[in-house]
């Protein structure tokens, strides 16, 4: 089950320490090692079925891997009677395999996981329950996620294109949630991805991860890059451990493999082999699979860019693209049918020689903060001209201050609650197109004045019976950070139809800015608690 792991977690107990002047090796502590060092697990009897460890009964060994074994466990009281905790999911115990007491890779990986897991929440991580004292019996008890990892699907690659996109969306959604919690996974690969019954991806194994606000125990530990060979990002090869975009590279490797049935960079086992990805680009997926659409190649190759700045900046932006393939802006990446020329590779190789990453990588928080998804909800058919102007100016200012942000312009086309036949006919189609045209026209001054390039601006006409529901749902699915929308000015209309903006404000998970027309003559009762300032000039639009 374990994938090719080398040179992950290089074991070099006596190896040189990278740039740590303070301390050369474990040797100097030697004479005191008996106190606590490596004195691991020796106090307990061997683990076997029926044993009780810290109140957990070992029921069945589910898996025995090279690094750890997994046990299904349940809680028991001091007398050994079942003592389940209300509302607790089925539990699993992960017990690291410590080989001969000299295995820094396992020890530190376990320490890292024990440190990071309790800080994680949400449906995309296994719920943390308990941990064991290292000097007695090291273990982590967590929620048992039923079912298989994504690993067996590799055997079936190439997969159907729909499934590839679906995997991409789910994993990217989970990754964004993790990055929002200040954690970079750094070992994204099929065997670390599982799914809940509702389809949500769950990311497991945090032994190589980095939490922005916790000490990085792995930072100085090893003198070789850490990760799984085929999936490691170029910056990981160069010892950068805090860039969330490394996880997007690994996801790109996965998507490439699922699309083509081949690994983009093979499975190198030496540092020299790993470094090749700094200058040799993979064979374009379309050269390996004729029916791979250009948009999918665009997405995959964008994930596999050597420079993190050229990749998707957040997993949410990747998920957004995969959910609207027709909105993806195709660049030369999409057209490529062969690797770059020898000459180009030679140039890249030359510049990669001894290359160090140019500057300190931005933290997860920094990358996420500067790469927001902003959603402009525009009622192109019904809003007043004043309101549309004010809304556009507000959106323009927000996008202007966030150079990495993406703007999704959304309009809702109301349809009957039952029976959508009307939309599939000719009239329905033309209405949809008409609305899309209006939306693009509304956004034109923004796209012109801000030079929104390379897929930073997208348009979406949603067909739904309830505009508020549709907007909230779109924002949630696409992990929108900020919704900007207009308040319905006409109070009579609002009285009968209800306020869309107040519903969106109440039900959205993100920031919502509600815009009013500058010269609102009547003083409406505010529909939402986030009114925009009214005193801005409107002549800023080009």
């Amino acid at each position, binding site marked *: 089950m374990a994938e090719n792991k080398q040179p992950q977690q290089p074991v070099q107990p006596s190896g040189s320490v990278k740039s740590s002047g303070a301390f050369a090796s474990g040797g100097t502590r030697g004479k005191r090692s008996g106190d606590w060092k490596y004195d691991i697990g020796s106090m307990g009897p061997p683990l076997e079925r029926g044993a009780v*460890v810290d109140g957990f009964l070992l029921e*069945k060994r589910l898996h025995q891997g090279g690094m750890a074994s997994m046990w299904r466990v*349940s809680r028991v009281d001091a007398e*050994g009677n079942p003592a389940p905790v209300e509302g607790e999911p089925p539990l699993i115990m992960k017990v690291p395999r410590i080989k001969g007491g000299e295995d820094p890779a396992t*020890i530190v990986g376990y320490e890292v996981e024990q440190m990071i897991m309790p800080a994680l929440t949400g449906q995309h991580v296994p719920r943390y329950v308990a941990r064991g*004292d290292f000097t007695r019996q090291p273990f982590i008890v967590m929620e048992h996620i039923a079912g298989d990892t994504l690993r067996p699907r590799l055997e079936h690659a190439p997969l159907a294109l729909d499934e590839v996109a679906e995997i991409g969306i789910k994993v990217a959604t989970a990754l964004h949630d993790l990055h929002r919690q200040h954690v970079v996974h750094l070992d994204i690969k099929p065997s670390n991805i599982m799914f809940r019954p509702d389809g949500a991806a769950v990311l497991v194994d945090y032994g190589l991860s980095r939490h*922005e*606000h*916790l000490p990085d*125990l792995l930072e100085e530990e090893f003198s070789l890059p850490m990760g799984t060979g085929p999936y490691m990002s170029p910056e990981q090869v160069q010892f950068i451990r805090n860039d969330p975009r490394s996880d997007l590279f690994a996801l790109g490797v996965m998507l490439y493999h699922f699309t083509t049935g081949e690994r983009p960079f093979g499975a190198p086992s030496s540092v020299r082999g790993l470094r090749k990805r700094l200058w040799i680009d993979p064979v374009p997926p379309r050269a390996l699979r004729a029916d791979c659409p250009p948009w999918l190649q665009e997405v995959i190759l964008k994930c596999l860019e050597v420079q993190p700045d050229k990749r998707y900046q957040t997993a949410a932006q990747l998920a957004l693209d995969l959910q609207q393939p027709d909105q993806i802006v195709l660049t030369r990446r999409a057209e490529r049918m062969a690797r770059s020329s020898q000459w180009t590779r030679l140039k890249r190789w030359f510049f990669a020689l001894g290359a160090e990453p140019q500057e300190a990588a931005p933290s997860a928080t920094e990358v996420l903060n500067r790469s927001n998804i902003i959603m402009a909800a525009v009622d192109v058919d019904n809003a007043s001209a004043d309101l549309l102007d004010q809304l556009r100016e507000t959106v323009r200012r927000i996008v202007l201050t966030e150079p990495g942000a993406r703007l999704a312009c959304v309009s809702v086309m109301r349809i009957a609650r039952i029976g959508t036949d009307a939309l599939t006919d000719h009239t329905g189609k033309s209405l949809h197109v008409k609305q899309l045209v209006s939306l693009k026209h509304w956004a034109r001054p923004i796209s012109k004045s801000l030079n929104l390039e390379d897929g930073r601006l997208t348009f979406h006409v949603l067909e739904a019976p309830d505009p508020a529901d549709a907007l909230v749902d779109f924002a949630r699915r696409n992990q929108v950070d900020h919704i900007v929308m207009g308040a319905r000015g006409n109070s009579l209309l609002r009285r009968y139809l209800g306020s869309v903006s107040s519903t969106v404000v109440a039900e959205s998970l993100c920031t919502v800015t509600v815009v009013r027309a500058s010269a609102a003559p009547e003083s409406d009762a505010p529909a939402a608690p986030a009114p925009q300032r009214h005193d801005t000039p409107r002549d800023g639009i080009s």
Partner: protein
Amino acid sequence: MQATPGRGRHLLRTEKTAISPEQMTKIAVVTDLHANREAVEAVFAHARAQGATEWAFLGDFVGYGADPAWVVDQVRELVEAGAAAVCGNHDEAAVIGSTPQMRAEARLVIDWTRAQLEPGQLDFLAALPFQVQRQDILYVHANAFAPSQWEYVQGRADAVRSIHATQCHYTFCGHVHEPRLYHLGATGKAGDFTPTPEMPIPLPGYRQWLVIPGSCGQPRDGNPAACYAMFEPDAQRITYHRVPYDHESAAAKILAAGLPERLAARLAEGI
């Protein structure tokens, strides 16, 4: 699968599973108070609201600030109730008095501070030990390798030297005014970390840790808010806190006392 109780079972229990959250020990570790009453009041109030059950003070109760007597009284009261406290270089100087070798400003501050303290307060400072060990925790002002020599822990090399000088898994020291966390693993590799305030950090006991909470009465990392740390030994967890306080009043009192203007100005900037 139903397990059959009693056959082939082993009970490995750690004491911590039996402790309910209300009984958990929470130690508020406060250091380098430097006669700053406003900062100390704010930190005490914050720590009490956080549910502190014990107190530890890492020295430098006096010096720089305008309220040495009040601060010493507060600490003495808590020490009489069981708190740990160690001596800092400023406390020692207040007890011994200034010497001609000192810079003029230091001499001024020390003489002024001495004049503010009653004999009982000076006796309390004079009786402070250089280090206190409680179970697996060592409290010391400057470092564990030479507690009375006042060498700073300024980097990993100093931290490892200090960690090597004790059997304790947890060392708390002050003297350095910027919050910092050092650790030494079973594989012999040391690391350092600048903590994020209010973020609980696990400090598992199979590593050795050196915690510098940062100065309560004279923060110097560019953030004027007072520092302290809350250690939960049962949960093996530490949280560095930053507490905003009325540094303007503290600065005004320093000026009113005729102490150097620089000592007042730096409180607003945290430098």
